C-alpha cells in the first residue's frame, strides 16, 4: 500500500536563512509547505523589563539592541518619545545631525537586507556588493560615535557629540559614489532573470491583508499603500525635505525587495539635503537642548511612532514622575510584519520560504525584544 505522509522540517533556530535565531516548523507535502509554525523567543532578553529599572538615559543603549542593523533609528524613536513626554525642543542643528545619521542607518539596514536577500536566493556575489557600501557606512559611524553596530549616539535633547571633521569628506565621497552603486545592485540582482523568476509573483500580499495585519514599512508599501510616517506624520525636521515614497504594485517578494532598493535612492537624497542645510547653519549653534541633569519627566505617557527601517517603530513610554520609566513598550515592526508568515508561506516551496522570510526583512533582536 502506498500512502503519503506529511513531513515536518525544523527550519532553525540555527539555520543560515532565518536571519537570526528564529525557528520555523514547516509541515511539508514533498517540498510544498502545508503549514508553517513560527516559534521565536530565542533572543528574548526582556528589554522592556530591564528598562523599568534603569534611568531614562540608561535605556538608550538597550534600544540599540533591538534592531541592531539600524540602531540609530531605534535611538531616535526612543529619545523623541522622551522629549515629547518632557516637552523638550531640540536645537535645529541637532535635528539635522539626527536626520543624517538615521538615514545612514536606514541605508545600512537596507544594504544588508538587499545583500542578504541575494544570498538567500543563492547569489553570493550579490551579497558582497551591498556589503561594500555598508562597510563604508559602518566606518563613518565609527568616526561619529566610535561604534559600528550599537551606537548609543542620541541623547535626550540632542546628540552625544558633534560630527567630527573627517566625517564630512567621507560622507561627501560616499554620496557621490552611492547612486552608481545602487545601479550596480540593479544590474547584478534586480535585473537578473533568475532573481526575477524566483521573486515575481511569489507570496503576493494584497493591500487589504497588509492593512488588516498591521504591516508597515517596505512590506506595506510594496502592496501599493503609500504610507510613510516621514510624510504622513512628519517628526523632527522631516517635513523640510524633498523626497518621494516608493510604492510597489503587486505586493510580491520582488516588490518588497525593490521598494527597499528604491528607498535607498530616496535616503540618499535626504542625506544630501540635510548635509547641505547642516553646513549652512552656524557651527556655534548648540547640539543639545537645555535638559536638567537628572531626567525626571512629569507624570504621564506618550506613544510616538517613527518610520524605522523595517516599518513603523513605536515607543510607548509611561512616566510616574521618578527617574526610572514606569513602563517602556516598543512596537517592533519586524514582530508584527512576521505575524502573517504562516499564511504567506502556505502552498509555496521550501526554497520560497527562504525568499519570503528574506523579503520581510526581519531582525530577530527586534522580533524577540
Amino acid at each position: 500500500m502506498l500512502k503519503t505522509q506529511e513531513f515536518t522540517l525544523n527550519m532553525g533556530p540555527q539555520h543560515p536563512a532565518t536571519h537570526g535565531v528564529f525557528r520555523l516548523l514547516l509541515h511539508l507535502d514533498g517540498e510544498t509547505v502545508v503549514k508553517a509554525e513560527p516559534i521565536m523567543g530565542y533572543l528574548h532578553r526582556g528589554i522592556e523589563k530591564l528598562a523599568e529599572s534603569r534611568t531614562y538615559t540608561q535605556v538608550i543603549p538597550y534600544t540599540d539592541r533591538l534592531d541592531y542593523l539600524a540602531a540609530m533609528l531605534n535611538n531616535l524613536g526612543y529619545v523623541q518619545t522622551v522629549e515629547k513626554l518632557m516637552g523638550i525642543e531640540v536645537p535645529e542643528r541637532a535635528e539635522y545631525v539626527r536626520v543624517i545619521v538615521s538615514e545612514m542607518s536606514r541605508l545600512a539596514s537596507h544594504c544588508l537586507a538587499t545583500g542578504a536577500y541575494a544570498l538567500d536566493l543563492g547569489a553570493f556575489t550579490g551579497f558582497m556588493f551591498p556589503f561594500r557600501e555598508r562597510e563604508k557606512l559602518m566606518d563613518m559611524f565609527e568616526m561619529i560615535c566610535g561604534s559600528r553596530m550599537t551606537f548609543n549616539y542620541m541623547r535626550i535633547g540632542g546628540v552625544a557629540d558633534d560630527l567630527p571633521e573627517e566625517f564630512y569628506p567621507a560622507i561627501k565621497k560616499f554620496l557621490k559614489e552611492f547612486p552608481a552603486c545602487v545601479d550596480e545592485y540593479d544590474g547584478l540582482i534586480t535585473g537578473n532573470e533568475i532573481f526575477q523568476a524566483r521573486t515575481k509573483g511569489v507570496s503576493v500580499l494584497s493591500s487589504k491583508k497588509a492593512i488588516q495585519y498591521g504591516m508597515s514599512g517596505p512590506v506595506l508599501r510594496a502592496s501599493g499603500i503609500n504610507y510613510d510616517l516621514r510624510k504622513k506624520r512628519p517628526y523632527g525636521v522631516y517635513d523640510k525635505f524633498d523626497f518621494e515614497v516608493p510604492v510597489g504594485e503587486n505586493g510580491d517578494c520582488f516588490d518588497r525587495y525593490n521598494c527597499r532598493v528604491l528607498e535607498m535612492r530616496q535616503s540618499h537624497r535626504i542625506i544630501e539635503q540635510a548635509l547641505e542645510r547642516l553646513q549652512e547653519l552656524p557651527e556655534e549653534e548648540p547640539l543639545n537642548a537645555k535638559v536638567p541633569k537628572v531626567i525626571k519627566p512629569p507624570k504621564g505617557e506618550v506613544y510616538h511612532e517613527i518610520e524605522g527601517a523595517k516599518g513603523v517603530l513605536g515607543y510607548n513610554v509611561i512616566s510616574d514622575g521618578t527617574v526610572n520609566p514606569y513602563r517602556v513598550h516598543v512596537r517592533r515592526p519586524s514582530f508584527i510584519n512576521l505575524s502573517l508568515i504562516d499564511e504567506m508561506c502556505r502552498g509555496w516551496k521550501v526554497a520560497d520560504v527562504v525568499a519570503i522570510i528574506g523579503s520581510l526583512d526581519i531582525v530577530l533582536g527586534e522580533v524577540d525584544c
Partner: protein
Amino acid sequence: MENLFTNLAGSLRAALESTGLPAILTDTSMTMVKLTAILVFILLNALWLVYMERKVAGYIQFRPGPNRVGPKGLLQTTADIGKLMSKEVVIPKQADKVLFLLAPALVFAPPLMVFAVVPFGENMAAIDMNIGLFYFLAVASLSTVIFWMAGWSSNNKYSLLGGMRVVAQMVSYELPLVLSILGVVMITGTLNISEIVRSQQGIWFIFAQPLAFLIFFIAGVAECNRAPFDLAEGESELVAGPFTEYSGMGFAMFFLAEYASALVISFMCAILFLGGWLAPFGMTFIPGWIWMFLKVYLVMFLIMWIRWTYPRIRVDQLMGFGWKVLVPLSLANIFVTGLVMKIFKMLGW
C-alpha cells in the same frame, strides 16, 4: 614537445619490455602507471581548482581571496585538506553506517572512471575505447546513486530533501545531455572520443552545433550540481543538502569530487565542441595537450563565472526548464541536424 607524454610512455614501455617481462604484465603495469598518472592529475587539479575558484570569487567580489598560506595563498587548499583530515568523522547515531561511510569513499569513482577514456592530447587517452562517449554517459550518471546514498543514509531531513532533489535533477538533465551529444555523433558517425576530436579538423562543433553546445553546457553544469543549479546543496534552504551530516574527510571528499566532476564536464565540452587538442588558427607551435588544457580551463572559468553571478533557481523551475525547454530544443536540434545532413548528401557535398 607535442609528443612529450606519448614519448615518455613509449620509453617506459620499452624499458619494461627490455627487462624481459611477459607482454601481459607489461600491458597491465603500463595501464596502472597511466591510471595513477590520471589519479594524481585529477587530485592536483581538484586542489588547484578549489584555489582558483576562491581566487576568482575573490576578484569578482572585490577581495583578494586566499593569500596567506604559501606564496600567493597557493597552499590554502592543502592546509584546508590537512585540517579536514585531522578532524573527527562524526557518524550520526541514526545513520546507516555502511552506506554513510561508503558514499564519500565512492564519490570520486565516477569522475575518475570517466577520465580513463578521456584523451588529454593526440594519442593520450589511457584507454582508447571505441564506445568512449557511451561509456562516459553511462559512468557519469552513476554519481546520482552516490549522492542519493549520502542523502538517504544520513537520516537527516535536509539530507533527504537534498538527495531527492539530486535524483530528480540528474535524471531529468541526463536526457538533454545525451540528446545534445547525438547531434555531434550524427555528424561524426562515431562514439570514439579521439575520432570525434579528429573530425573537428575542418570546423569545431561549437560552430556547427551551437545549440547543442549550449544545451550540453547547461545540462552539464546541472549534472555537476553547480550554481545556478546547486539545488542539492542549496545552502540557504537545505543547509548543505546530502552533505549536511558529513564532517572531516567525508565532507572533503564530496567537496573535491564536485570539482572533479566539473572537470569532467569541462573536458567533455572541450573535446566535443571546442576541438579538443586541435590548435586554432594553425598555432601548432603550442603542443596539443596545452591547447586541450587551455580550453578546459576556459570552460572551467566560465562555470565559475556563472556560479559567482547567478542566484539559484527553484526546484520546480529547474524541472520545468529541463523538460519544457532543453529536451524539446535538443530534439529539434537533432531533427535539424538530420535534415541538413540529408540535404547536404542530396547536394552531393
